[in-house]
C-alpha cells in the first residue's frame, strides 16, 4: 500500500520541473548554519570522503615504499609517519564517522518518519567540533606523529612528535562522535512516526541504535585516555610510565576498551545498510528480522568484553587471555547470525545485480573472509605466531575495508539518487566495483601469505624473500586506486550531469523512498502513519515491475 503512494509522489513531483528539495537554498552560509540533518549528513559525508582519499594516498605511498626490501624512497622515519597518518586519518576521520555521521544523519530521520533529529543544534555543533578536531590534528603535523595509530606508551609519551596536540584533536573528534551518538539515541527513542514500533523500523535503524550505544559508552573512555596521555607529556603525570610506577599495559587496556568496541561502530551501520539493500534487490522480505535486530545489540554488548584479544602478548595473565579468547570467539556468533539471515533472504529471491547489490554481496564475501581469519588471531596459540605480522594487517583490511567500506559504498550507490536527486551511471559504477573488488583482493590476500610467512607489520625494511609478494600487493593497490578513481568520477559526474532520479529508483519500501528525490527540507508533508514493517517485498513477476 505504501508503494502506490511512493509511485504517486514520484510521478507528480519529479517530472520535468525537478525540484531541488532541501538543496534549494544556495550559498556558503546556508551550509555553515544549517540545522537540516540532511545537509549536516552531506557535510560529514563530503568531509569524510575527502579524508578517505587523503588516507588512500598515504596507503599508496606505503605500498610504493614496500616495493623494495631495503631503505629506498622514504627514510625509515618518514615511513613511520606515513603508516601512522594512514591509520589515524582512515580510522578517526573516515571510517568511524563516515556511515554513522554521514549516512546516519541523512537517513535516520527519514527512515523513522521524523522531520529532523532530536537536537538539530547539537547536531550542527557536533559537525563543527569535528572540524575543530581535524584542524587541531592537522596542526600537529608540524611535527608529524610516528607512533602508529595505536599511540602505545611509553614511546608516545616520549617521542618528539606532537602527540599532545594530536591527543586534543582526537579528544575533540571523539566529543563530536559522542554528541552524534547521543542525538541518534534520543531521536530513535522519541521521534518515531506514529505506529512505528521497535519491530517495525528498518534494520538500518537497529544497526545505528546499537552503534550509538557504543559511541556513547566507549568514546568517553578513549577521551580520558588521550587526556591522560597529554597530561603525561605536559605535566609528567606518570600513569603509563614505568619509571614513575605507572604501567604501559594500563594504557593498552584503556585504548582497546574503546578501540575494540569502535570496530563495531564501523561495522554495525554497514551491516544495517546490507540489511536494507539485500531484500530490495532480492525482492523478498528480510529473513529473520528479529534475529538481525537483536544480534546488533548482542554484538554491541559482547563487543565490550573482548578488548584483551589485542594484548595476548602484552603480558596479561593466562586466565585473562583464555577468557578474552573465548569471548572473542563468542562475538562471532551474532555476526554469523546476520550472514546466514542475509543468505536466507536471498534464497529463491529474484535477485538483480545493480551496483548497490554488487557492493552488498562483496561485503558479505569479504567480511566473512575477514571474520574467519579473525579466528586465527583470536585463538591463543596461533595468535602468538601471527601477532604483529601482515596477517593482522590483511585481517583488519578485510573486515574494515572489505566490510565497512563496501557497506558504505553499497549505501552510497543505493542512496545516492535520494541524497542528490540524480542517478549515477550504472556502467561506471560496475566498472568501479570490478576494479575495486579485484584490486582489493590482490592487495590484501597476498598479505595473509606474507604475514603467515612471518613478515612483520610496520617494519620499514623486510627480508628480501618477501619481495615478490609485496610487488603483487603493490600492483593490487594500483588496481584498487583505479577502481576508486572511477567511482569518484562517477560520483562527481552524477552530481552535475546525472539523470534526474525518480522518488524510488530501486522500488524500495522504506519511508525515504516515499518522498521525492531529493527530499524536501521538512522531509514529509505529513508524518506517515505506520501499520506494518517495511519489508513486504514480493517477487518481480507478481509485482508487475518487469
Amino acid at each position, binding site marked *: 500500500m505504501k508503494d502506490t503512494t511512493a509511485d504517486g509522489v514520484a510521478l507528480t513531483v519529479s517530472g520535468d520541473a525537478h525540484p531541488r528539495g532541501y538543496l534549494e537554498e544556495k550559498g556558503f552560509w546556508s551550509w555553515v548554519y544549517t540545522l*537540516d540533518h540532511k545537509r549536516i549528513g552531506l557535510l560529514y559525508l563530503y568531509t569524510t570522503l575527502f579524508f578517505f582519499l587523503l588516507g588512500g594516498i598515504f596507503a599508496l605511498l606505503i605500498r610504493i615504499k614496500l616495493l623494495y626490501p631495503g631503505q629506498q624512497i622514504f627514510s625509515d622515519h618518514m615511513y613511520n609517519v606515513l603508516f601512522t597518518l594512514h591509520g589515524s586519518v582512515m580510522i578517526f576521520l573516515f571510517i568511524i564517522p563516515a556511515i554513522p555521521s554521514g549516512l546516519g544523519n541523512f537517513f535516520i530521520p527519514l527512515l523513522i*518518519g*521524523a*522531520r*529532523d*533529529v*532530536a*537536537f*538539530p543544534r*547539537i547536531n550542527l555543533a557536533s559537525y563543527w567540533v569535528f572540524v575543530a578536531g581535524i584542524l587541531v590534528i592537522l596542526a600537529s603535523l608540524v611535527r608529524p606523529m610516528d607512533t602508529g595509530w595505536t599511540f602505545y606508551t611509553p614511546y608516545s609519551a616520549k617521542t618528539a612528535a606532537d602527540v599532545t596536540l594530536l591527543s586534543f584533536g582526537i579528544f575533540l573528534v571523539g566529543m563530536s562522535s*559522542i554528541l552524534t551518538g*547521543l*542525538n541518534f*539515541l*534520543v*531521536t530513535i*527513542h*522519541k*521521534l*518515531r*512516526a*506514529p*505506529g*512505528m*514500533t*521497535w519491530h517495525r523500523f528498518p534494520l538500518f535503524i537497529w544497526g545505528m541504535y546499537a552503534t550509538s550505544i557504543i559511541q*556513547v*559508552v*566507549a*568514546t*568517553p*573512555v578513549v*577521551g*580520558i*585516555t588521550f*587526556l*591522560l596521555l597529554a*597530561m603525561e607529556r605536559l*605535566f*609528567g*603525570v*606518570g*600513569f603509563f610510565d614505568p619509571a*614513575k*610506577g*605507572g*604501567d604501559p599495559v*594500563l594504557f593498552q587496556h*584503556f585504548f582497546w576498551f574503546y578501540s575494540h568496541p569502535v570496530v563495531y561502530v564501523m561495522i554495525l551501520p554497514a551491516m544495517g545498510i546490507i540489511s536494507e539493500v539485500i531484500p530490495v534487490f532480492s525482492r523478498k522480505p528480510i529473513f529473520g528480522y528479529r534475529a538481525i535486530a537483536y544480534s546488533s545489540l548482542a554484538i554491541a554488548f559482547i563487543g565490550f568484553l573482548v578488548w584483551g584479544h589485542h594484548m595476548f602478548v602484552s603480558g596479561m595473565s593466562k586466565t585473562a587471555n583464555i577468557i578474552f579468547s573465548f569471548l572473542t570467539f563468542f562475538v562471532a556468533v551474532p555476526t554469523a547470525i546476520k550472514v546466514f539471515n542475509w543468505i536466507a533472504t536471498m534464497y529463491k529471491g529474484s535477485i538483480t545485480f545493480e551496483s548497490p547489490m554488487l557492493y552488498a554481496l562483496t561485503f558479505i564475501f569479504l567480511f566473512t573472509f575477514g571474520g574467519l581469519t579473525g579466528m586465527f588471531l583470536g585463538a591463543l596459540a596461533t595468535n602468538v605466531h601471527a601477532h604483529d605480522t601482515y596477517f593482522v594487517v590483511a585481517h583488519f583490511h578485510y573486515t574494515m575495508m572489505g566490510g565497512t567500506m563496501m557497506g558504505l559504498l553499497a549505501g552510497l550507490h543505493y542512496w545516492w539518487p535520494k541524497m542528490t536527486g540524480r542517478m549515477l551511471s550504472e556502467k561506471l559504477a560496475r566498472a568501479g566495483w570490478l576494479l575495486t573488488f579485484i584490486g582489493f583482493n590482490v592487495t590484501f590476500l597476498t598479505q595473509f601469505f606474507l604475514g603467515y610467512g612471518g613478515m612483520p607489520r610496520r617494519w620499514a625494511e623486510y627480508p628480501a624473500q618477501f619481495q615478490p609478494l609485496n610487488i603483487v600487493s603493490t600492483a593490487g593497490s594500483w588496481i584498487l586506486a583505479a577502481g576508486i578513481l572511477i567511482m569518484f568520477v562517477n560520483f562527481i559526474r552524477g552530481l552535475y550531469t546525472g539523470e534526474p532520479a525518480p522518488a524510488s529508483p530501486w522500488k524500495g519500501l522504506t519511508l525515504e523512498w516515499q518522498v521525492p528525490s531529493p527530499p524536501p*527540507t*521538512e522531509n514529509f*508533508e*505529513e*508524518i506517515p502513519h505506520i501499520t506494518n514493517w517495511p519489508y513486504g517485498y514480493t517477487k518481480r513477476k507478481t509485482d508487475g515491475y518487469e
Partner: protein
Amino acid sequence: MGTSEPKAVSGANPGEHAAHASPAVTYEAAKLGIWTFIATEVLLFGGLFTTYIVFRTKFPHMFHADYVHLNRVLGAVNTVVLICSSLTVALGIAAIRKGKQGMLRLCLVLTILLAAGFLVIKYFEWTEKFAHGLYPGTDVFFSLYFMMTGLHGLHVLAGMLVLGAVLVLAGQGRFSESYHTPVEISGLYWHFVDLVWIYLFPLFYLIG
C-alpha cells in the same frame, strides 16, 4: 509504547520545519538526552576511578603516606559548599514549578556564587600544594589528585557557565510553570557535578 508521543508530533504543527513541535516530546527528549550525557560523563570519570583503584592496589603505602598532605578542613568545607549548591538548585527548580520567577533567579545566583566559592577554595588548596613542592608529576597519588580534582574543577566551571546562561534566560522571563526544561536539565547536570565530588572527597581526603 513509544508510539503515543510521536503522534503529538504530527498533530502539533504539520508543515513547520522543526524537529518536534510538541513541548511534551521536547521535554522528554531533553530528559533522555541529559541522562545519556551524564552517562558519558560517568564513563569519562570512570577511566580515572579505574586508574585510582589500580594504583591504590599497587601502592597502598604511598597512598597512606601522601594523603596526610591534603587539607581535610578545606576539603570538608568544599563538600558542604557543594551540597548547599545542590540544595539551592533544587529549590530553584521547585520554585519555577510553582511559577515563582524571582525565587528561581535568587536560587540560580546563590548556586553560581557557591560554585565560585568552591573554586576559590580549590585554588587555595592547589597553591598550598605547589608551595610545598607537590605537583602533578610528584608521584602517582598526586597525579591522581590533580587530575581528578582538576577535571572535576573544569566541570564545576562548565556548570557555572551553563547555570549562568540559564540565569540570563530566567532574567528575560523565559521560564514559567509550564515551561522550564533548561532549568531542570542544567539542574540535573549540576547534581551530577556535585555527586562526583561526593566520591572524590572520601577517596582522597578520608581513607588513607
